[in-house]
């Protein structure tokens, strides 16, 4: 299938929409290219969350990101949840809808965590079939995001990247690559993150997540409560080289700084993309130039890690 049919437009540089920033965004209209909203936070009838969401969705492109689809579970798909997602998407017209390649609930109990799947033929078929059903209900391709993981199963017969690729191919869905999650899992499972990037089909990669983590030396936990560290910026640059300009956002879920600090951090992402494509083909440069983000001055005491970008050892 030709690339143009699978992927949707490049949106530029975005941020996760967080309650703490609602007022700031409406007041200052920052030139962020787009916002990602956590679907579950807005599956409510009304009030402030819906008011702000709808006001912001009128002014910015938005994408919906969920955590409860439990696409890998052996429970039946939750049709009520899918209908609620579809209703929300009718209300705010997201550019796309994503969730994670994992499972969250079994026998009706929700762990509210993104739990890992065994990477087997059986799981590929199971997940792909369910993605097709979800795509039927939602009437569009969804994006599946790789999760951070801390254990691996004896049953697994393939690497995580092969698993993700096979599901995406079999289900004909798109991929959201979380660069931080690749780094975290690489550290916890001792693989080379570049091997991961090499195996993912560029035609299916629609979005990147960037985030921070907590490094405990022997292992790393995906906490989303820190700035994006140098290790993740470095891997981001490698991902840009492999996949070209991809809609990128910073995912900050805890210890959330003031909006201008995140704005500055997102500037770093754009800066790296500009450096990466400075000498590249006209097409990539043109795509990147569609982003209008980054021209405003934001006042912030926040220091962005401005160390020079290191090359990942390959």
């Amino acid at each position, binding site marked *: 299938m030709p690339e143009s049919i699978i992927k949707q437009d490049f949106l530029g540089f975005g941020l996760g929409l967080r309650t703490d920033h609602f007022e700031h965004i409406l007041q200052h209209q920052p030139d962020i290219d787009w916002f990602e909203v956590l679907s579950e936070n807005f599956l409510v*009838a009304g*009030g*402030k969350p819906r008011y702000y969401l709808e006001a912001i969705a009128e002014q910015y492109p938005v994408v919906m990101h969920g955590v409860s689809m439990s696409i*890998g579970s*052996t429970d039946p798909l939750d049709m009520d949840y899918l209908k609620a997602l579809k209703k929300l998407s009718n209300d705010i017209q997201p550019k796309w809808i994503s969730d994670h390649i994992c499972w969250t609930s079994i026998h009706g109990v929700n762990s509210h965590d993104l*739990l890992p799947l065994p990477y087997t033929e059986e799981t590929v078929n199971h997940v792909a079939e369910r993605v097709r059903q979800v795509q039927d209900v939602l009437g569009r391709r969804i994006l599946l995001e790789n999760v951070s993981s801390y*254990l691996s199963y004896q049953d697994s017969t393939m690497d995580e990247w092969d698993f993700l690729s096979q599901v995406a191919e079999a289900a004909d869905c798109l991929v959201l690559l979380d660069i931080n999650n690749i780094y975290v899992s690489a550290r*916890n499972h001792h693989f080379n993150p570049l091997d991961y990037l090499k195996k993912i089909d560029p035609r299916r990669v629609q979005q990147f997540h960037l985030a921070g983590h907590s490094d405990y030396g022997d292992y790393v936990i995906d906490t989303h409560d820190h700035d994006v560290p140098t290790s993740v910026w470095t891997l981001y640059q490698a991902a840009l080289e492999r996949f070209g300009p991809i809609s990128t956002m910073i995912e900050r879920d805890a210890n959330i700084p003031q909006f201008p600090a995140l704005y500055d951090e997102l500037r770093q992402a754009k800066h790296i993309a500009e450096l990466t494509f400075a000498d590249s083909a006209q097409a990539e440069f043109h795509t990147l130039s569609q982003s209008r983000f980054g021209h405003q001055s934001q006042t912030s005491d926040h220091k962005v890690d401005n160390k020079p970008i290191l090359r990942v050892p390959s």
Partner: protein
Amino acid sequence: MSRLAEIQQQFMAYLLSDETNNDHNKCQSAMQANMSQQAGISADIRLAIYANAYRIRLKETIETDHEILGRYLGDDLFDKMAADYTRAHPSANQSLRQFCDALPDFLQQDLFFKQHPIIADLARFERRLLNAFDAADSTSASFSDLQAISPELWPNCCLRFHPSVQIFTCSSNAVEAWQALKADSTPPAPDYQSTRAWLLWRGQTRLTEFASLTAAQHALLLGFIQGNNFAEQCEQMLEWHDEQSAPMMVLQTMQTWFQQGLIRAVVSD
């Protein structure tokens, strides 16, 4: 059962069990048997990362939803409540927004916490505040909508309320304690002498508001919510007011409700 289903069942059993369960070690060994040997950290630690994340996420949800209850209890009792509730009520919802819905009933029935009924009342009050916060939106009617109706039809008029409108009743001074803690002062000692009623709603600026109700106001509001008409409610007010002042009291109270945006529609038929 498929192998995938078996792994998921064993993983969840491990997450739900903790040191207080007799079969905790069994659940842990079952999961360890599913895991491959990896360099670096041990299987125990790998599993514990998931177990901790599970408990912390749910505890943080209780903290966010029940901030004042948390202050009332203090850290140790709050930790006990979070652990006991999480054990008794695993989440069955897609959103964490509903995770604590069963907390008031849990606190009312739990052998330890039910010794202090004000604790369950505090939790129930905070649930009501949340319900008012994200209830459905609706336009509001105004007093002129009532005036537009011919006065001879007024006796048959009924009211429809904004979806955020709720009544909270309790037999403790939970709301007074809530207000004190919110203002960073010491809550009054628990008092179970009288039943109290409160009206909760979401105001025009989308802020959650509440006000205490006298017995007459409570009966008036409850009657209208239950579908009684103006004439029936005037009659009910005779318990507190004489025949002249009862209709005035009803009209004045309704006027306040209109101003507060509590009334969605006036229905006459």
